Each structure stands twice: as structure tokens, then as C-alpha cells.
């Protein structure tokens, strides 16, 4: 198992390094001089040149990359061009909105999808299954930001149960903060849950057709015990693969959903940074999200090794 884990770890590290090179290269070919941007257009050429030297912009390419990448490792992303504060401070303020949002959405979609998948797999081809999968087919087609608009209309405008947007901050107490994340999380979670429910159902049906399930039933175990103890555990492998892939979509979805609800998260930060051409912020946030995606997929790989005894023995 250690060999397997080690290999996955190496691959993840390589992917991360390559991704950082891509991001760095993209930012390199962008037009615009950050030093000029910070000093404004009235600054003299000498002043700009001095700041360029100070910021290390005149150093050779490789050196600049190593400096930047080394900074990333110690969470030093540099300073924002427009706010003149360390990027990490901006990120820290925003991540406490985006991360809880993504996690609540992930939890919600799992909590909805697994029972629906179990329900459908147990009634394969019957009315309940047809209805549930029809609903899932519909859910897959719904754009999350449109769903978000409908939720706002229903729960914030009509019923006035939750705020339509904005975020009071965690200082205002746990409940007001969670309350303002509730609608965004539901909007993110339901379309994902639809996909996940379909995967869970097909994975379960596949497993339920296996010989060892028949054996378990034949030795007198009730359906429930077979389902929960034998089938679901094995069906979790494809479900988790999709869950890991979905995390990337959830993160990307957060960026859009934050714009619907005016949440001060990473997504809003990125869009503001793009319009202000605050590229160091853009590259930092992109790098952070990419790292998160890679990390989650690595976790899924690790989980495989834990649940799948065949992988445990593999060299």
C-alpha cells in the first residue's frame, strides 16, 4: 500500500508543480507592468525601474519563478497591487466564506444523493425509481446559478425566510452567518446531488448483482444488512471518485454562486482582481483552488487504498 500511496503522492506533487508553471507562464505573458500599475502613470521611468528592482521583476525568469513558488510554499503570495496588503490577508478574509460554503454544499449533496441512490437501486425499474431518476435527470440539467435565482425569489423575496444576499461575517454569530450561506449551499448542492444520485444508484445496482451479495442473502442475512454492510461499502468507490471530481466543479461553482448572492468569498475576490488587473491576486487564488482540487483527489486516492483490500496489497 505504501508504494501505491507514494506513487499517488509523487504524481500529485508533479501535477502541482506543472500547474504552478502554467499559472506563472500565463501571468508572464500578460501585458502590463505591475510596477507601473502600482506607481500610477505620473511616476518617472527611474522610479518605476527602482520599484521593478525592489520587486525583483528584473531578475532572470527561472529565479523569479523559484522565488514565487518558494513564496507559495510558505503561504507568502506577495502583495496585492491595488490594495497594497499581503495577498494572504485578502485570501484569509475570503476563504472563511468560500470554504464553509463548498463544504456545506458537499455535505448536503452527499446527504441527499446517497439515500436517493439506495432507494432507487432497491426499486430498480419500479415507479419510485423512475420518478427519482427522472427528477435526477432534470436536476443535472439545471444551471446552479439559475436555481439560485429561483431560490432567492422563493425564500428571500416571497417567504422572507433568509436574506437574499450578503454575508454578516462570522463575528455576527454562527447562526446568522450559516443562515446566509444556506441558500447558496442548496443552490450548489442540488444539481451536484442529482449527478451523484445517478452514480450511486448505478454503482449499487452493479454491486447488488455480484455473486457475494447472493451468497450473503443465501446465508440468511436480511436485505438491509446486505445493503448497508456489503453493497454500499463497495459501491462507495465510484461514488467517491465522482465526489472528488465534483469538488472541482463545486469550487468553480462557488465562484459563480458567490456573485449571485453577493458573498465576499474567493470568487468575488477573483472577479474584482480581474477588473482591477490585480494579477498577483488572480494567480494566487487560481493556484490555491488548483491546489485544493489536487489535494482532494489525492485524498480520494488514499481512501481507495483504505477501503479496497486489493490496493492494500498492491506493490
Amino acid at each position, binding site marked *: 500500500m505504501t508504494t501505491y500511496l507514494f506513487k499517488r503522492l509523487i*504524481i500529485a506533487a*508533479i*501535477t*502541482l508543480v*506543472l*500547474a504552478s508553471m*502554467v*499559472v506563472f507562464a*500565463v501571468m508572464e*505573458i*500578460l501585458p502590463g507592468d505591475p510596477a507601473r500599475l502600482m506607481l500610477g502613470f505620473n511616476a518617472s521611468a527611474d522610479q518605476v525601474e527602482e520599484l521593478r528592482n525592489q520587486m525583483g521583476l528584473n531578475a532572470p525568469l527561472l529565479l523569479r519563478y523559484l522565488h514565487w513558488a518558494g513564496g507559495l510554499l510558505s503561504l507568502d503570495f506577495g502583495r496585492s497591487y491595488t490594495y497594497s496588503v499581503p495577498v494572504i490577508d485578502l485570501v484569509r478574509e475570503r476563504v472563511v466564506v468560500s470554504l464553509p460554503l463548498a463544504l456545506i454544499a458537499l455535505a448536503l449533496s452527499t446527504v441527499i444523493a446517497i439515500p436517493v441512490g439506495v432507494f432507487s437501486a432497491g426499486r430498480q425499474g419500479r415507479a419510485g425509481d423512475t420518478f427519482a431518476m427522472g427528477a435526477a*435527470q*432534470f436536476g*443535472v*440539467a*439545471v*444551471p446552479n*446559478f*439559475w436555481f439560485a*435565482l*429561483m431560490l*432567492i*425569489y422563493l425564500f428571500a*423575496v416571497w417567504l422572507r425566510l433568509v436574506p437574499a444576499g450578503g454575508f454578516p461575517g462570522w463575528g455576527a454569530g454562527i447562526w446568522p452567518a450559516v443562515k446566509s450561506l444556506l441558500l447558496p449551499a442548496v443552490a450548489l448542492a442540488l444539481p451536484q446531488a442529482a449527478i451523484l444520485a*445517478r452514480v450511486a444508484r*448505478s454503482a449499487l*445496482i*452493479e454491486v447488488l*448483482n455480484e455473486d457475494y451479495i447472493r451468497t450473503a442473502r443465501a446465508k440468511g442475512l436480511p436485505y438491509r444488512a446486505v445493503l448497508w454492510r456489503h453493497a454500499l461499502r463497495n459501491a462507495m468507490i465510484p461514488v467517491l471518485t465522482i465526489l472528488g*471530481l465534483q469538488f*472541482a*466543479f463545486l*469550487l*468553480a*461553482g462557488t*465562484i*459563480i454562486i458567490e*456573485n*449571485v448572492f453577493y458573498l465576499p468569498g474567493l470568487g468575488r475576490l*477573483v*472577479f474584482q482582481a*480581474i477588473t482591477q488587473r490585480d*494579477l498577483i491576486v*488572480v494567480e494566487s487564488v*487560481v493556484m490555491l*483552488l*488548483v491546489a485544493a*482540487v*489536487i489535494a482532494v*483527489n489525492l485524498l480520494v486516492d488514499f481512501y481507495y487504498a483504505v477501503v479496497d483490500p486489493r490496493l492494500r496489497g498492491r506493490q
Partner: protein
Amino acid sequence: MTVRVDLPEETLAGILAKAFGNRSFLTGFAITLLVAAIALLSFVWTPYDVTKLVIADKTQAPSWTHWFGTDHFGRDILSMIMVGARNSIAVALVAVGIGMGIGVPLGAFAAARGGLADEALMRINDLVFAFPALLSAIMITAIFGPGAVNAIIAIGIFNIPVFARVARAAALAIWPREFILAARAAGKGMTQISVEHILPNIATLLLVQGTIQFALGILAEAGLSYVGLGAQPPMPSWGRMLFDAQTRMVTAPWMAIFPGMAIIVTVLGLNLLGDGIADILDPKSRRRR
């Protein structure tokens, strides 16, 4: 000569008969055809001119004169949805074309060569997968500025590893087959075998993946246009219409409801079509899905 082994006993007539018996395929096919027809119709006729702003008619509720109501500039929502269909279809279609055009040869090459080339390609795949489509769109927009073309590129890039992966996996399953061995014995090279024998046998899988990516492309384009990274006004696009609707949810909810419905119906149709094709061509898949 091309050898087909997937469906030895299937004839075209047999496939057609199955297609007509498949509800998912029929519904999906009808919806897709309808959306495509509406997009084509919009080139020659729409109920109202979408380029003309009639401020006197602004934010009117749905009525007999404006079935889906009007927007904040007095433009007819139904007409805008019709024209917007063009944009959605064009972006998603070209993005699938990019993904297939680059991804399939890469995947087929990796399967044919194996070894280091295969390993390298899979690592690059991992790399692209680490950038969700929206993230790469953000980076591309940061470089080239927003626009429909850049949305196509962003979604297209994201499609490449998807098709590469599907093509590679499917091709790997075909390579050990006997008729490939025969082709090699006949002195055919890797490229020739890939084009003449592998590709026709993985085409159906690619078609199914194509409809899925088409549907995802329409969703992604709507998302990008919604946040202002896709099609730019005055070009009507479904995502952009939803952006305009956002601040008017209280006074003009129809501005959001109908473009959203258009997206849902289109994506639903494509997904049903993909499911249907998969069912027809691979009966085993029905059990799995």
C-alpha cells in the same frame, strides 16, 4: 477495409427499430431537433427584432403579444431566447469539436504507443483536470479579455482531456483483439490501424461522450456569460439574459424564468439523447445506469 466488431449481428434497420422503441432516445432526439430548428429559424424570423430597443414596452409581463414578456429594454424575451440558442449551440459545438479534434488523436496515440508517451499524456491530463473550466476561462479572460471566442477556447481546452481519456480507454480495449493482430500482420502501421480500425470501433462511445460534453458546454457557456466572461452584449445569450434578470427578480421574474427554462430543456434533451444512444448501442449499459 474497415472491420466492425461491436455489433456483428446489428444492421442499420435493426438499430433504427431499436431507436424508435427507446423512449429516452426519442424524447432527447425530438427536443434536440426542436432546439436546433428554433436556432435556425431565428436567422430568418423572430417574433420581434432583438436589436431594437422599445423603452415604452420595457419589463412587460408575459401576454399574448409577448409570450415570455419583455426585458428592461423592451426587447421580446422569446425572440432573444431564439437568437440566444444560436450562441449556446455554436459555443458548445465548437468546444466539443476542439475537444474531439485534439483529444481523440492524443488518446488514440497514447493507446497505440503506450509506455512513456502514454504516461506523459495521462499526467498532462491530470494537469488540465486540476483546472476547472471556469478557472481556465478566468485565466484566458485575464489575458485576452472576455468574449464568446475565449469562452469557446476555455470550454474546448477543458474538453480535450475528457475525450483523450475516453478515446485512450476505449482504444486500449480494442488493441489486443484478433482483427488488429491481422491488420498488423498485413503490414499496416500504427497510424493506419488507429484510423482504419480503432476509430470506427470507438466512434459510438465518442458520440455518447460528445452529447454529454455538448450539454456540459451549454451549461458552462451560460455560466461564463452570466458572470460576464462569455458572449458580450448586444449579442443575446441565455447566460447574459439571466445576469440582466438578477437585479430585477422582484419586478420582472419572467426575465429569469424563461431563459433558465431554455437552458434546462436543451441540456435535458441532449442528456436524454446521449443516454438513448448509449442504450441502443450497448444494451448492457441500461442495467448500469
